């Protein structure tokens, strides 16, 4: 009799979800699904609001990566105002976005994933958390705390508060950068770089322990999508949208984000509040593509900064030009942090960053705008339509976790097929199903628009739908 397994809730991710694993009549895994069970509906909440309010409202989608929503939203508003932010305004948006990538990746790597990487996926759950890291490897814990604190401090210094700053506005930013703040940030970057390099050393020195997991943690061919700069370097704020296949060939390049609906499809399933984005040309559900740090470093020709390029070269020497296992999101995240810190230095050393001209002003000059940016978890689209008075009529958000939804489902299935035996849930299977989702660092608050952290619920179901086994964490 076919059966089904459910993991509900899934832990150490951002949001609420559960996993079901269905067995066939022979007791083998037939299908697995990652269900996102929360709903917020920001697209509807904002209808009727003045477009100038959008960045501040949209930042409330998430407490981890509000800056990316601020940036993508402000860029959509720029189009509606038909303005281009002054160069210093655009660069200051970049600074804040990069700082946010640092703090968000630090949370994902050190707080959420490092317990598995340090203690092993089968270690006692009671000690497999940040407090366990504090006891076993205090330097790793200190580095995580310091990097997260660094990113949060930069955001707070620029925007007045570390969560939901209202500093990024349509047309630019709300206030120029002071010389003192610039010097304080610059002075702190060397320490943050040291900590990142030390963590990268620790990771690359221990990752071979997890070769078996890397081989089944979402290791399948798929496309990858990210922004790249004019010379093919990694880019977080602007640039061209590029999509590559698993061999590294370009499926598309220099894409205009505005007609994203012509190349990206969005499917909805009755069993999840999270939309599944797919590459239109390949259809649904075959058009799987991935975004986020692994996609960014796979898609880019180079990172464009010395230390990150060195780290990327070592990464590619070990894993090839386009590593396809989602396990490598962890290392990609650290390389991304390195790149962000170097870019921060570059941007802040430019004397023009202190320019007082940081915002352009205009009324409503267009009825539609699309804003795009690289959020910590991947490419983020905000698409607005407004009436002639600038009141929002329609909104569509295409969030990193939605881009990765098909890949996450495929990864859960791959892990389940490898580890599920019989009609009972086992700890090794449960640990690894959770961990493969964690590789993507999904933010369900962003992608469905809910609050809270993600507990875990797994159900094992038979072919008739009967619940055979169930685990909660």
């Amino acid at each position, binding site marked *: 009799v076919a059966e089904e397994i459910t993991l509900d809730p899934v*832990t*150490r991710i951002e949001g609420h979800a559960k996993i079901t694993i269905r067995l066939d009549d022979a007791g083998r895994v037939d299908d697995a699904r990652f269900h996102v069970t929360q709903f917020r509906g920001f697209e509807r909440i904002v209808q009727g609001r003045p477009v100038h309010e959008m960045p501040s409202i949209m930042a409330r989608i998430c*407490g981890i990566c509000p800056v990316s929503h601020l940036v993508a939203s402000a860029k959509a508003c720029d189009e509606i105002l038909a303005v281009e932010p002054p160069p210093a305004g655009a660069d200051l948006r970049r600074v804040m976005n990069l700082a946010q990538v640092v703090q968000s990746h630090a*949370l994902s790597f050190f*707080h*959420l994933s490092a317990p598995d990487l340090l203690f092993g996926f089968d270690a006692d*759950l*009671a*000690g*497999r*958390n*940040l*407090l366990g890291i*504090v*006891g076993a490897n*205090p330097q790793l*814990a*200190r580095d*995580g*705390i*310091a990097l*997260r*604190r*660094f990113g*949060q*401090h930069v955001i707070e*210094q620029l925007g007045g508060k570390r*969560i939901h700053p209202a500093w990024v506005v349509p047309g630019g930013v709300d206030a120029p950068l002071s010389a003192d703040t610039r010097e*304080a*940030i610059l*002075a*702190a970057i060397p*320490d943050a770089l040291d900590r990142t390099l030390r963590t990268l050393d620790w990771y690359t020195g221990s990752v071979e322990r997890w070769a078996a997991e890397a081989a089944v943690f979402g290791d399948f061919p798929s496309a990858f999508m990210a922004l790249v700069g004019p010379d093919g370097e990694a880019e977080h704020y602007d640039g061209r949208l590029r999509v590559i296949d698993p061999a590294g060939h370009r499926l598309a390049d220099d894409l205009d984000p505005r007609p994203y609906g012509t190349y990206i499809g969005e499917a909805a399933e009755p069993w999840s509040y999270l939309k599944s984005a797919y590459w239109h040309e390949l259809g649904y559900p075959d058009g799987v593509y991935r975004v986020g740090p692994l996609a960014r470093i796979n898609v880019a020709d180079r990172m464009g900064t010395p230390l990150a390029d060195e780290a990327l070269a070592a990464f590619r020497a070990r894993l090839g030009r386009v590593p396809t296992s989602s396990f490598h999101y962890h290392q990609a995240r650290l390389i991304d942090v390195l790149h962000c810190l170097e870019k921060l230095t570059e941007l802040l050393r430019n004397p023009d960053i202190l320019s007082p001209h940081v915002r352009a002003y205009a009324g409503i000059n267009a009825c539609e705008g699309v804003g795009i940016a690289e959020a910590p978890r991947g490419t983020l689209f905000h698409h607005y339509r407004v009436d002639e008075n600038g009141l929002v009529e329609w909104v569509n958000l295409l969030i990193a976790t939605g881009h990765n939804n098909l890949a996450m489902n495929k990864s859960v299935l791959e892990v389940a097929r490898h580890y599920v035996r019989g009609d009972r849930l086992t700890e090794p299977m449960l640990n690894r199903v959770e961990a493969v989702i964690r590789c993507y660092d999904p933010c369900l608050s962003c992608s469905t628009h809910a609050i809270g*952290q993600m507990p875990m619920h797994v159900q094992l179901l038979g072919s008739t739908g009967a619940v055979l086994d169930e685990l909660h*964490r």
Partner: protein
Amino acid sequence: MTTRILTIGYGNPLRGDDGFGWHAGVQLACERRRPGCTVLVRHQLTPELAADVAEAGLVVLIDASCGGEPAGEIVTRRIDASPAPAHTWSHHLRPSALLVLSRTLYDVDPPMFVITATGATFNYGEGLSPVLHRALPEVVRIIRRVWSAAEELVDSRPAGWFYW
């Protein structure tokens, strides 16, 4: 010796009286303070605060409490650095866990006190219940007295904002 006094007001201002510490923190943060008195306003205690705690000579937390005493009652207690119960925390901590982190990571566990006011309602909504609205000035006065009493400990050197 580190002599800074760190005051952290925390809570969720969108959940009624849960925001008591947050409101107190905002009020204190707007006041003129001697150098060395730092006020942080947070929605919750997070691991990153361990580094701030480690740099302080005295830590005072302000929070709402949700049971035990009658609504509006103000209680002050000292926090011990006892190990936190095992759970998969990553986003928020109890005061004792924050102190444990500071001690384990930075070899410092300054005296830490928490001042709580018992809330009447924790439902969705901004603003405090009348009873906690009345308790707010009293807690602010207590913190001012703490600052004043600990004045001799206060280092007049301004702290940089990037202190590891």
